[in-house]
């Protein structure tokens, strides 16, 4: 029941906005804000109400949905220590996205409605315990994303929006095959709880293939080299709030999917593929960082850095240890707020200068001291400075994965130097150096919502950096269950 309410809060907001008459368009933002705040508050209530000692899923609802012979689908929702932090991340970033959109003036009703539908579909992905329902939410997210990028974006927005959709759908096609294979195999089902407890066998294709198909679907989203090229395009052409949602939560659907589906359902195959996942993760970390160093567009640069940072997630999952998977999940949370904040700061800068070309910017520290402070803060969080969110995640993954794949980790830690390189070099070119008189007219004057978003995200980054036990203790029990599956097949 609780989860249904949480899912319906943004949906209700979207419906209400849809009912607004055109002359009251200005009020769309307030309805969106109200519903985002309500969703955040309710998700926080669930988070603190959640008892991490409970095995399995909490707040479960299960209703019959489709029942035709062996085609049994349910409206089945539930959360555990792995998904609940991601849900809180989603509601936090939804609120941030709504607030940062207050400067949007074009077709506000549609805009906010789509943003809320996007939030609902992502929440659905993190709650669904029926594989088909999961897939439906997974696909549903594409519609608002496509429209948000292609209507409110900039640059080659139609190309980027289309590329994003086609890429995801191509991945989804593999995923759908895998879902059907699993559902109709021996011991198979659409029910993720059942799938996560039974050992599937006798699918149409060898299970290794099924694993690979599922993995491809998630890897596109994460994204993993060589399936990542949609990300820089989508990011650089999306409006600020959509970049925040995209980097902040949509990428995490990929990592979540790998942990919940690939590893939990097919631990044996995960064990076989572990070294490939870790290797691909390490490769993505370095490759992403090297390519980041060449970028000249500020947003594109941060987008490429996401490829590098999400490589850390894959490295952690591939190592299949409790510490490393907890680190991977933590990295998803950390990257969500850190990169979200970076996109917010870039958005604020773009609103004032109307360019993202690094070469054209420069010396902005004088004209925009507050935005600069936020940018430096988020930049250091992104390069993994201790006491901020990214550090805990990275070090936990590195330590956890080092037990198993020493060389992959030793290669990966070079990313730490490269990230310092691209972040600090970018800061040097954008905010430091002599004042450029092109930007004499721009000011740092903030609207209250800009303050709130930047400050709020900074606080989240500090909380994640200083009080890791908050999330780690929540995750611990649920990750234990995943690890128990892996250890079962190892022995």
């Amino acid at each position, binding site marked *: 029941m609780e989860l249904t309410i949480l899912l319906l809060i943004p949906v209700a907001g979207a419906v209400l906005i849809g009912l607004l008459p055109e002359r009251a368009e200005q009020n769309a933002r307030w309805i969106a804000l109200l519903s985002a705040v309500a969703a955040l508050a309710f998700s926080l209530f669930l988070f603190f109400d959640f008892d991490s000692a409970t095995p399995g899923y909490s707040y479960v609802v299960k209703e019959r949905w489709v029942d035709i012979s*062996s085609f049994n689908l349910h409206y089945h929702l539930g959360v555990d220590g792995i998904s609940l932090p991601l849900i809180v991340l989603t509601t936090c970033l939804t609120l941030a996205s709504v607030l940062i959109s207050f400067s949007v003036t074009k077709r506000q009703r549609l805009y906010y409605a789509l943003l809320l539908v996007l939030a609902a579909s992502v929440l659905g992905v993190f709650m669904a315990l029926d594989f088909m329902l999961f897939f439906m939410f997974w696909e549903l997210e594409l519609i608002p994303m496509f429209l948000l990028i292609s209507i409110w974006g900039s640059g080659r927005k139609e190309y980027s929006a289309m590329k994003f959709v086609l890429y995801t759908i191509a991945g989804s096609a593999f995923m759908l095959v895998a879902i059907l294979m699993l559902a109709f195999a021996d011991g198979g089902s659409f029910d993720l709880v059942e799938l996560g407890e039974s050992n599937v066998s006798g699918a*149409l294709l060898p299970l290794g293939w099924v694993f690979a198909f599922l993995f491809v679907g998630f890897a596109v989203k994460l994204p993993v080299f060589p399936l990542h*090229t949609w990300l820089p395009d989508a990011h650089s052409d999306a409006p600020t709030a959509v970049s925040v949602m995209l980097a902040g939560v949509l990428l995490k659907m990929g990592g979540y999917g790998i942990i919940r589906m690939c590893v939990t359902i097919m631990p044996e195959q995960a064990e076989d593929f572990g070294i490939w996942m870790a290797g691909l993760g390490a490769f993505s970390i370095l490759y992403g960082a090297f390519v980041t160093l*060449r970028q000249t567009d500020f947003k594109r640069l941060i987008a490429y850095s996401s490829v590098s940072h999400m490589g850390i997630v894959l490295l952690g999952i591939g190592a299949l240890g409790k*510490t490393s998977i907890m680190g991977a999940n933590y990295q998803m949370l950390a990257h969500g707020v850190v990169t979200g904040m970076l996109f917010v700061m870039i958005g604020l800068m773009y609103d004032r200068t109307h360019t993202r070309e690094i070469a054209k910017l420069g010396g902005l520290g004088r004209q925009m001291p507050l935005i600069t402070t936020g940018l430096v803060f988020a930049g250091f969080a992104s390069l993994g400075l201790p*006491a901020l969110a990214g550090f805990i995640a990275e*070090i936990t993954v590195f330590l956890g994965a080092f037990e198993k794949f020493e060389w992959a980790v030793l290669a990966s830690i070079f990313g*730490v130097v490269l990230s310092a390189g691209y972040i*600090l070099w970018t800061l040097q070119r954008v905010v430091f150096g002599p004042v450029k008189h092109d930007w004499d007219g721009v000011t740092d004057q903030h609207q209250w919502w800009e303050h709130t978003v930047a400050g709020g995200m900074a606080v989240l980054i500090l909380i994640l950096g200083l009080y890791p036990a908050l999330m780690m203790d929540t995750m611990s029990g649920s990750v234990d269950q995943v690890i128990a599956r892996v250890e079962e097949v190892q022995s």
Partner: protein
Amino acid sequence: MPFLLAESAATSVPTIDEWVLWAIIASPLIGWGLIVAYLRKIPVVAGGVAIATIGVSLALSFFALFNVIDADGGILVHTHEWFTAGSLSVNIGVRIDGLTAVMLVVVTSVAFLVQLYSTGYMHGDTGYGRYFAHMCLFVFSMLGLVLADNLFMIFIFWELVGLCSYLLIGFWFHRPAAAAAAKKAFITTRIGDLGLLAALLLIWTRGPGGSFDVGLIQEWATSGEPEGWIITLFALGIFAGAVGKSAQFPLHVWLPDAMEGPTPVSALIHAATMVAAGVYLVARFFPVFEASHDAMTVVAWIGAATSLIAATIAIVQTDFKRVMAYSTVSQLGLMMLSLGAFGYVAAIFHLFTHAFFKALLFLTAGSVNHATNTYDMRLMGGLRKYMPITFATCVIGSLSLAGIFPLAGFWSKDEILLDAFRENPGLWFVAQLVSLLTAFYIFRAIFLTFFGEYRGGQPVDPHDHDSHFEGDPAHPHEPPWSMRAPLLILAVPAIAAGAFVINHSFRDLIEGALPHALEHESSFEWSIAISSTVLGVLGIGLAWAIYQKHWLSSRSFAMGFGPLTALFEQKWYFDKLYEDFLVKRVLQSGWNRLLELNDKYVVDGVVNGVGTVARVTSDRMRVIQNGQPQAYGLGFAAGILVVVVAVFAANPL
């Protein structure tokens, strides 16, 4: 519950309350918070808050030091769990022992005087509040670093001092040189930090049961249990971190550039405390190094190479502050050399005396800059007459640095030479050569700056609105009392800090931090003392002959060394090799460009290629899409049939 290490060489345990130790760290953090939250707009108060909060830490640090002395150098550890992730369990805790106590006093006392000095030096700067906020944050991080009881926490504060160094080097961020130097400092030290990170990984998987505790690691290393190569790798990882932070060859290139920061910052961070953290780190894990002779050899010779390279560069610098910077690199090299020669106490003793006399020298450089608006010694000269106090204190610092009896530097350098001589005459020879060069370059700077005729300084640029220079460079004068007082106070330890060596209390204190007593027992050796003093006097005399008496023209002297002079002037070509060749050509224009093109034309090219093929194909297939419902219906039915067959095939009834 305090957790005690019974294996300590000392028998008693400090009785200090845990909250005192945390308060030492917390006080500057509170200062930072106050300045950031409220006081950025009220500058005078920002300076006062910094002085007051660091003053609290200073007082408590002395309290802690006396407490440890009372306990004959015992060890006390308080630790708490921070977070757990699977088998990873991370603690935060404080450890007080002789080494920590000495470091606390060094850090807080220099920091306190530097803040006082800064209130004068930074007067009128637009970033006055920001300056003191960063300074407080630095002192907090540095104190956390020396009080940390485990490697994980050391790593955290290690990175945080790097952040503060970055922020303060780039304090005048509108200057391109400052922005570039800040970046260079952070990235270069981070290359060294890779080693520290690798050591952290290694100690977790192959160390003492997943613990990062300093005491446990020391015991583990000395237990004879772990394999030799693990110890060596761990030690080298730790040392790599130290190489970055303490600006050792081959990562020394960032420290001279760091002089772009305000001079009090250079005095505190880039002379007395943070750059000495590498020496502290090696000392903290000294038992690990002792267990690996290979690692010790590396430490000793890297230190030797650093001290010699830096000293040779220092003799050709024309910038007063850069002379100091290379001098710092060189002296840190000597400390490393000492550690590598098993001179644990000598290294820390030199760290201790160096902190005072080098901070003093930097602050006098700041005074000179305050009067002349430049650091270029070619624009100075004759300042002795205008600035007698600055001159006198600068000479005291220089004599101490040159190791002249009976100043502080004499005693600590003498111990290093003694340890080096016992370990390896080659090391001793390098150290002696460096002593000669040191005396020469620092008095060269003294003669160029304070003697002869004044050459006018750097005129104030009326268009530079960022400069807060006050006064007239043509008429240099002593700085205000807020800047003079720290010079006079620092002159005292620069003269007298050597007194500690006489009654052995320092040695007992520092040795007490180790799990067992040291093998080497050093004593005073007349031959070493006399030879080093002779070389020091010789170096000063040579500088006097060339730069004061002009018996030998400096140009012909330089010509005499031919290509060596060019090598020194070009800083041994390290910057050219690293920046122009490795970073710009090999990495950025070569490798990264290759990957970028690959991403654009190969990886994304395939995707777009697939897209094009699909579009072309669908153009052909459009014939099928003819608008006739019957045809669609047929296709639809066929599709359903395929799905049904597929499902039944997979799932025979």
